[in-house]
Every structure is written in structure tokens, then in C-alpha cells.
């Protein structure tokens, strides 16, 4: 039954998308049916996911794996691929997050996109995204993983470029798509290796026979690193991260759903899904962990300097996913998934709260033009506060538990883990600072200079209710996994992570980490209060300090400029040179040579150029005839 429902869950958003896309067009349709289809399809998918979840709860843990094939999609050169889904505890967890958070954000969008003239297109694309994301996590083989991977890329492209008449939206969309194609190539090459070495792409078989690749072998390393290229591109890990901050040109609900809660965490899902492969190569795991560490730290420093409220959150997302990637690289798979879940809650909360602000201010996104909003937007203020406390790891809030788990477990994961602990703790301090900088600058103090053009209007219930639900989840979501208490996430994921290394911290490590984590969170908030909250003039007085390095940070270490110069610029010049110089002369030369010879030597043909079709026809027919005569003569001899 689980898989039957699974197919329905997968089909619903697709049907929603198709229904909206193919709606008979006589102007824009009324909003009622659009909302019913667009939001309803996701709601039903969520309810059904919950039903499947409940039925799985009733099962024995070892039986919580359902695979079902719809038909044989292809059988080629000895490799057979089915259109098949897998519902195990890992994909179940992702399905709940995708449909649950997805539903809330769809609901929120009803009001947020109210003024948009392409209402229907928005919901069609959002439904398409949910379908793609579900396909990604429910696939039972690497082919449909890659298909889902590509489809979320399309959805992301479409929604980043949603305001397609704005040049920067178009540019960002293209950048996101192309960088993700680079990731796709990594995934595809990994699949080629699996085809060559194992002759199959089915999860069950690949994971069962992964040992044939050879522990610590070059092949295993190559497969893992290539998969990680895909993961890094999708999850905004350095050096393939730079599309993610630019992706904020999309509508805010899109940023919340795709570029914070779900799609960008697909890379983490991928590593956890392929843990059997990553366990084969410690070097691959270490590389992943190091990339995660570098990303989580550098992105946190960049987030400190951003002025655009959404870009703060975007860099924060890059940084938070860095934590998950680091954890996955260290072998802390369940911890990575736990943080993935809490992050979905609190980051969606933060984005939707930011969206409420932007909506209320008529599109304003700059922190310089905000201030004192807590007096105007109560719901957004409380939600943003809850989200900030959660992401900063304030004791008792969701991020506290999940981030602490990653850090504490890192302590038990060897030398690299210890380094990860230190980096992660420093970055946690930065996280608290940059998040509360945002909170204090937007919601505290006086109104901005010159006041607001029109009074910020609080949101209606369409936006307020989902925001409140997510805020509650951001507060309490961490309580399902409590140190020294219970480990519901670990227990739930255990059947999907059989054979993964058992890493758990000693009591001392756990206690130390909890205490330091709490201190860091409080200290970060205090520093932010000192710099940005208590005295607003202090920030302006400090504006001149270290302007150069700050500009580098504002530009995200200027990696974009380097890419532009080194990669895009050079190949564009090459392409131009080929088009301008080689193509007409070189390749054209090869062709014009015979043409020139024929023209020069045969006056007949020149006469034919008078344009008489008959002449051409005669020449052609004569040619074919001559060829025929040659054949006959040659053959008869």
C-alpha cells in the first residue's frame, strides 16, 4: 500500500502542474481554482505522506523499506532501468519535509503573490518543483535520481527567473542553471563509473555490491567525488556556491522553499543516500568534510556584511548546509539529516518572515531602509525572532539541538572532527552575530530616515498562519532528539543507515559541547546587541574600519569576478575567435578550395551559374547518369 500511495503522492503535484499549465487560456483564470489546484495538490500529498508515515510507524523497523517498479523504462547494453520508487525511512523523512513545508509555503504564496499577474504560472512552476523534488528523493535508481536532480534544476531556473523581464533575474537564472549542469555532469560521470564497474544503477544492487569497487580504491574515491560535485553544485558548497546568493532574485516563497528548505539540501540527502559508497573511501569523506568546513566558515563571514535582507539569509543557508555537509563527510549521517530538518523549519521561517517584511514594504529588501519594524509587523517580528534564536543555537530552540549534535559528534570523529568542531563553533558565533544583526537592524531602533513611503501593512491570515506554524516548528522541532534523552531521528533512520559507522561522543564531550554552544549563542547575541542594537550610531561610526576587507566580504570573496575572468571570459573569447576567424577562413577554406577549383577550371559550371534551373538539373542528372555508366562499364568489364 505504501508504494501505491507513493505513486499518488508523486503524481499529485505533477497533475497540479499540468492542470494549471494547460488551463484553457482566455485571459488569466479566476484565482479560486488556481489556489484550489495549486495548494490543494500539495496538501493532499502531505496528508497521504503522513498516512504512509503512520503505516510505516506501525511496521517493524526492519521492514520499513518499500520498493515498487512501474515499468521497465529502458534495457540497453545489459543495463536495465525501471521507473521505480523507494520508500524507506530516509525518503519518508524527506517526503514529509518537502510536502509539509512545501504546503505551508504554497499557502503563504496565495497572499504573497496576490498582486502578481502571472499567478497561475507561479503555482504551476511551484507544483512542478514539488514533483521534481519528490522524484529526486523517491527514486530507486541513479537514473531517476539524476532526472529529479535535473528537474529541480529546471524548476529552480524558472522560479529564479520568474520576473523574466528583469535583467538580473534572467542572468541569475542562467547562472544557477549552468552551475547546476556542471554538477549534473559530475553525477552523470559517477553513474558512468558505476555502469562500467557494476553494470547496474539500481540503489539496492549498487549498495549491496558496492564492496566490489574495493575499499579505499581509486574507483570508489572517484565515484564519491564525482557525486559530490553534483552535491556541491546543488547545495551551494564552495566553489560552486555563487549561484545561490544570486538566486534571491526569485520571489521570496521560492527562496524559502527551494533555496533554503528543500532543494539546496538535496546534496546532503545524496551523500546520506550513498553512505555505503562514501564509507568505502575515507579520503572522499574527508574531502567532503573539509569542503563543508571551508564553506560553513567563509559563508558565515560573508553573511556578516550583506545589506540585502535576503542575501544575508542566502549566505546563511550556504553556511548552514556547510554544517550538514561537514557532518555527512565525517560520517554523522543522522546528525546531518536532523540538522537538515530543523534547518528546513527555521530557515523557511526566516525567509517567510523576511518575505512578510518585503511584502509589507512594497518590495524593499535593503536593511539600510528598514528599522523599528517590530512596532508595525508583530507576527513577522515574533517569527523572525524565533527563527533567529533557533539558527543561533539558543538553548532550547531547534537549532540548538541539531547544531550541537553535529558539533558534539564531531569531537568524537577523529582529528578532522576536532578541527570541524572548532571551525563550527567559531562559525556558530558568527551565525548568532549576523542573524541578530539582521533582527536588530530591521526590527529595532527607530524607523529609517525619512520613514516608510507607506505604512507597513501587517499580513493577512494566508501569510500569518503558515508563518506562525513554521515559527512554532522552528522553536520546538529540535525536541525530537535530545542529548541524554531520546533519539527519535537516529532510531527512525537506523534501518536506512545499516552498517554506517557508529560514532557517538563521550558524556564529557557532550556536556562540554552543550555548555560551549550555549555560551557561544548568548555571546553572539550580546555582541550583535552591542554593535547593532544598543546604539545605532555605533555601527555608522565603525563603517570606516577595514573598508577594503569588508568590500571583499560583501562581494563574497570576489569569486564571481574570478569566474567571469578565468572561465567565462576566456572561453567566450575563444568562441568569438573561432566564429570570427577560423570558421570563415579555416573551415570555410576547406570548402571553398574545391569550389574554387571547380569554378576556375570548368567554364561550363560558370555558365550554369546564370541561374537557369534547367542547367543545374541537367548537370545533376548528367552526373548521376555518368556515375551509373561508370558502374555498368566497370562491372561488365
Amino acid at each position, binding site marked *: 500500500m505504501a508504494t501505491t500511495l507513493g505513486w499518488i503522492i508523486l503524481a499529485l503535484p505533477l497533475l497540479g502542474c499540468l492542470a494549471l499549465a494547460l488551463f484553457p487560456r482566455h485571459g488569466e483564470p479566476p484565482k479560486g481554482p488556481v489556489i484550489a489546484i495549486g495548494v490543494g495538490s500539495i496538501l493532499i500529498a502531505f496528508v497521504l505522506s503522513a498516512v504512509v508515515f503512520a503505516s510505516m510507524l506501525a511496521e517493524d523497523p526492519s521492514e520499513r523499506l518499500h520498493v515498487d517498479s512501474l515499468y521497465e523504462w529502458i*534495457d540497453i547494453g545489459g543495463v536495465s532501468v525501471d521507473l521505480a520508487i523507494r520508500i524507506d525511512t530516509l525518503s519518508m523523512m524527506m517526503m514529509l519535509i518537502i510536502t509539509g513545508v512545501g504546503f505551508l509555503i504554497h499557502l503563504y504564496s496565495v497572499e504573497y503573490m496576490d498582486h502578481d499577474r502571472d499567478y497561475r504560472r507561479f503555482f504551476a512552476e511551484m507544483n512542478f518543483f514539488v514533483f521534481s523534488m519528490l522524484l529526486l528523493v523517491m527514486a530507486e535508481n541513479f537514473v531517476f535520481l539524476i532526472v529529479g536532480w535535473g528537474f529541480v534544476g529546471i524548476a529552480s531556473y524558472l522560479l529564479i527567473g520568474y520576473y523574466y523581464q528583469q535583467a538580473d533575474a534572467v542572468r541569475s537564472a542562467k547562472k544557477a542553471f549552468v552551475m547546476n549542469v556542471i554538477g549534473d555532469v559530475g553525477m552523470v*560521470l559517477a553513474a558512468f563509473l558505476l555502469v562500467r564497474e557494476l553494470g547496474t544503477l539500481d540503489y539496492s544492487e549498487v549498495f549491496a555490491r558496492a564492496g566490489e569497487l574495493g575499499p579505499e580504491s581509486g574507483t570508489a574515491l572517484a565515484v564519491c567525488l564525482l557525486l559530490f560535485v553534483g552535491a556541491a553544485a546543488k547545495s551551494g558548497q564552495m566553489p560552486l556556491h555563487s549561484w545561490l546568493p544570486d538566486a534571491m532574485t526569485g520571489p521570496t516563497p521560492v527562496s524559502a522553499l527551494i533555496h533554503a528548505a528543500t532543494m539546496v539540501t538535496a546534496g546532503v540527502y545524496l551523500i546520506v543516500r550513498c553512505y555505503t559508497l562514501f564509507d568505502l573511501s575515507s579520503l572522499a569523506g574527508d574531502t567532503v568534510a573539509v569542503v563543508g568546513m571551508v564553506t560553513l566558515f567563509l559563508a558565515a563571514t560573508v553573511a556578516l556584511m550583506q545589506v540585502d535582507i535576503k542575501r544575508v539569509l542566502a549566505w546563511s543557508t550556504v553556511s548552514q548546509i556547510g554544517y550538514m555537509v561537514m557532518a555527512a563527510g565525517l560520517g554523522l549521517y543522522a546528525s546531518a539529516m536532523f540538522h537538515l530538518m530543523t534547518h528546513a523549519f527555521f530557515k523557511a521561517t526566516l525567509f517567510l518572515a523576511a518575505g512578510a517584511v518585503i511584502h509589507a514594504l512594497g518590495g524593499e529588501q535593503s536593511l539600510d531602509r528598514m528599522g523599528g519594524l517590530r512596532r508595525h509587523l508583530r507576527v513577522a517580528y515574533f517569527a523572525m525572532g524565533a527563527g533567529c534564536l533557533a539558527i543561533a543555537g539558543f538553548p532550547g530552540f531547534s537549532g540548538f539541538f541539531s547544531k550541537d549534535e553535529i558539533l558534539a559528534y564531531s569531537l568524537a570523529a577523529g582529528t578532522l572532527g576536532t578541527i570541524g568542531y572548532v571551525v563550527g563553533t567559531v562559525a556558530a558565533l558568527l551565525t548568532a552575530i549576523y542573524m541578530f544583526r539582521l533582527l536588530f537592524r530591521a526590527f529595532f531602533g527607530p524607523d529609517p530616515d525619512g520613514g516608510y513611503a507607506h505604512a507597513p501593512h501587517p499580513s493577512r491570515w494566508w501569510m500569518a498562519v503558515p508563518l506562525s506554524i513554521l515559527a512554532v516548528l522552528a522553536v520546538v522541532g529540535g525536541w525530537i532528539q535530545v542529548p541524554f534523552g531520546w533519539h527519535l531521528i537516529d532510531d527512525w533512520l537506523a534501518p536506512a543507515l545499516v552498517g554506517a559507522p557508529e560514532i557517538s561522543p563521550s558524556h564529557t564531550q557532550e556536556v562540554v559541547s552543550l555548555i560551549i554552544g550555549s555560551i557561544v549563542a548568548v555571546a553572539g547575541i550580546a555582541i550583535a546587541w552591542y554593535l547593532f542594537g544598543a546604539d545605532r550610531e555605533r555601527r555608522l561610526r565603525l563603517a570606516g574600519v577595514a573598508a577594503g576587507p569588508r568590500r571583499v566580504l560583501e562581494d563574497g570573496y570576489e569569486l564571481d569576478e574570478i569566474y567571469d575572468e578565468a572561465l567565462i571570459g576566456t572561453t567566450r573569447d575563444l568562441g568569438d575567435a573561432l566564429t570570427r576567424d577560423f570558421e570563415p577562413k579555416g573551415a570555410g577554406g576547406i570548402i571553398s578550395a574545391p569550389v574554387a577549383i571547380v569554378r576556375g577550371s570548368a567554364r561550363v559550371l560558370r555558365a550554369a551559374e546564370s541561374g537557369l534551373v534547367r542547367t543545374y538539373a541537367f548537370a545533376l*542528372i548528367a552526373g548521376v547518369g555518368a556515375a551509373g555508366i561508370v558502374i555498368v562499364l566497370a*562491372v561488365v568489364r
Partner: protein
Amino acid sequence: MPWITLTILVPLAGALLCGLLAQSERRTATLVALATAGVTLVLSLVALGLFDRNLADLQLVDHLDWVESIGLAWDVGVDGISIWLLLLTTVLFMVGIGYACFRLPERGPAFLAMLLLAEAGLIGLFAAGDLVLFYVFWEAMLVPFAFLIWVWGGERRRRAGLTFVIYTMVGSLLMLVAILATAFIAQDITGQFTFNIAELRGVAFSETESTWLFLGFALAFAIKLPLWPLHGWLPMAYGEAPILVTALLAAVMSKAAVYGMIRIGVPVFPEGANNLAILIGVLAVVGIVYGSLVAWRARTMRMLVAYSSLAHLGFVMLGIVAFDVMAAQGAVLQMVNHGIIVAAAFIIVGVINRGTGEEDIDRIGGLAARAPWLSGIFLIVAMASLAVPGSNAFVGEFFILAGVFRHHAWLAVLACIGIVYAAVYMLRLYQSSMNHEERGIPAGRRQELGLPDLVALVPLVLIMLFIALWPASIVGGTRASVEAAVAPAQVAAGRPADQILVPVPRNPPAENLPLPGDETAADPATTTPGGQP
């Protein structure tokens, strides 16, 4: 019923009929052309229905001896490779002729006659079971296409047509020489004079003979494809032909070359093919990267699609010269995919050109708001063209490269550069025309797809979706023929025995003439020509 013969003769008859009509009888000509294309399509579907997916050899064969003493015969049929190209041809010409009928150019009946003649030539080429027939049809399809460029092309149509003819003639003369040489040399070896392709398979040419004969064919194919750097005729012909003809050139005619390679070049001359495989593979990959870069920087929309076609055909060629069943099956699928996609892409470019009166990519923008259907269908076609995972082209490219990767990982990796740049240039085309602020859109013209455009595009899009959802429908039918086609080359390349799935024919039988390096010579099972496992 001689189904395949009928499939060739019906469009030929239709062409004659249209050709005989006065130029003023446009309406009659349209009806004749539509009926002919329709009947041909139905006939090809009947052939598909009768087709047995498990047979490797030519089936539905119509055999008629002509000049028996010199081995000339009417020998047509289909196998698991050509049946799909036959269908591709009939479907695309149905769409193309239907589309042409809505907007018939000057001298309409002649235009339709030429299209039908081209269709007959292509069908004959794909169905030919005999080298002489293959050659005759190879030249025969050149004539109508040359006329279509010459008479109905753009400003520089004369030069483009001439270039096209001379260039491809050079190649086909080489092929003619190679065909004759093949027959004579084979006669020396087997004592039997024949042009029959199936009988020529397995003839024990010496390695030198095999290489030179293969080269003769390969050059003709390389020019027709075109393979880099022999693509000089392509920008001109594609640029000057009426856009519908360009679509058919890119979609169907280019397949003649790759088809010849997998039908004749690789199976008949395995040693020669093996000697030149890496070279061709490298040229194909260079073509992929080169075509992608030039497409990216192209000035007009039409040139962008033309060069993208150069890149995509590189993938197909690469898949064939890898001598891998998976890659070759992927290549056959990709021939169909590319045909459908590039035809749709050119039709869309034609719609945009017509709606804006503008060819330059950078001078128009913002069409999406004016033409949502155009923008939606264009998006699907663009995504399929850049082979986004989940598209039909992805299936083809994925398995081509997966197969290539098994033997030449470096070629597959280099070809992946083309995948990235495909995203870059297709998005350039899509975004600059559909997105941004509106610019370069003249008032009073319709930019949205009209009914004729939809009638042409919707079936193509549906076929793309169908293949994407169920590629097994085509790939499954190619297995037997492809296995037989690549097996000799796999032996020549010294591949491990477990990859060679069918016994390789030997003519004369292997015990009479053992070949150097032929481990399976002692096995009597391998002596059955064209035998089944």
C-alpha cells in the same frame, strides 16, 4: 505486400504527380502532397507493426533481381536500426509537408514535388540492402535538396546550393569508388560478385584493404554528417535554405551519414573502422566542443541551432565508433531524438523570425509576455535540446557516453564539456528572445503560435515526451541489429569475449581462411553468416 517498396514508391509517385501539375494548381498539389505523405506515414507504421524486434537481419525484404550477372538487384527492407529512421523520415515529412501546405511559397507544386522526392530518396536510402541502391538513393536525395536550396533559398542561395552540391559530390564520388572496389576485392576473396550488404559482412578483407575501403565510405559520411572539420558547407546551406528545408536537412538528411556508418562502415570493414575509430572519435569530440562554442557566439538564431546540430551529431558519431552495444543503441535512439528536436527548434526559430522580422539574437527580446504558448513550447524544446535529465535527448546522450566511457573514458569526459556549453548556448537563445524587456517586436504582427505552427509542433513535442517516458519502446527494437552490427568491430578491437554478444559472420567461412588474432576461428558456431545466437 511489398510494404517497403511501396513506402518508397508512393512518395515518388506523389512527387511526379505534383511535378506535372501546373504552377497555378496549388490547391490540388497540396491535397496530393498531403495524401501522399499521409499514406507513406501509414505504410511505415504498417512496417513497424510487422517488424519483428528480435531479428537482427534485414526483414520485410523485397527482392527483385535486375542484372543478376553483375549482382544488381532491387533489395530493400528494414532492420532494427533503419525502421526507426524510416519512421523518423515519414513522420517529419508529414509534419514538414503539412506545414509547407499552410504557407506555400512561390511555385508551390514544384516545392512540394521536391519535398516528396527528397522523402522517397531518404526512405530508399534507409531501406537499401544493397550498396548500389544505397548509392543511387544517396545521390537521388541530393538532387531535390539542392533544388530546394537553389530555387527557394535566401539571397545567397546560388552559392549555397553550389557549395552543397560540389562538397557532397566529392564525398559521394569517393564512396562510389569505394563501392566498386569493395565489390571487386570481395570477389577476389570469396569468389562471389555482390553488392548485397548482408553478404559483404564478414568478408575477410586484409587490414590494409579494410582501412582504405572504410576510409572511402567514412569520408563521404563525414562530409554529409558533417564531421568537424568538414562542415564548411553547413553554415551556408543551413543559412540559405528555406527554414523548413533546413529543418529537414538537419533532422533527416544528416542521419544518412551516421546510418551509413553503422549499417555499412563499421560492420563491413571492422578492421578499418577499428584503425580509424579513435581518430573519428576525437574529431567527433572536437566537433562537439567546437560546435558548442561557435553556437554560443552565433549571431543569428538559425546559425545557433545549426551549430548546435553539429555538436549533437558529434555525440551520435562518437556512440557508433565506440563499438559498444550500449553506446550504439544510444546513438540510434539519439538519431531519432535529434531529428525530432532539431526540426522543432528550426520551426520555432522560423516562427520567431516571421513574427519579428528579425534574425539576430540580440535584437529581440521579451516575447514570452506576448506569446506564452510559444515560450512554453520553446522551453520544452530548448530543454530537450540541451539534454536536461529527464528529456528524450538525455536518454540518448547518457547511454552513448556511458558506453563510450567503458572503453575510452577520456573521450566521454571531454564530450561532457559539450553538455555544459549546450546549456549555455540554448539558454542564450531562449532567454534573449523570450525574456528581458520587450524589444525589436514590430506592432501589427502576430508572435504567438498560429494553428499551423501548433499542428506541426505539438506532435513533435508529444513524441519527445513519449520517448522520454518510455525509451525502451525504441531502444528495445534496436538491440538485435545493433549487437550484430558492432560485433565484428568489437572482435577487431580485441574486446573481451563477454562483451561480444553475437557470433561474427565469416565469409569465406573461418576454417578456410583463419584470420590473424581470431580466437574464435575454431568455433563452428561462428561460421554461420548473419547467424543468431
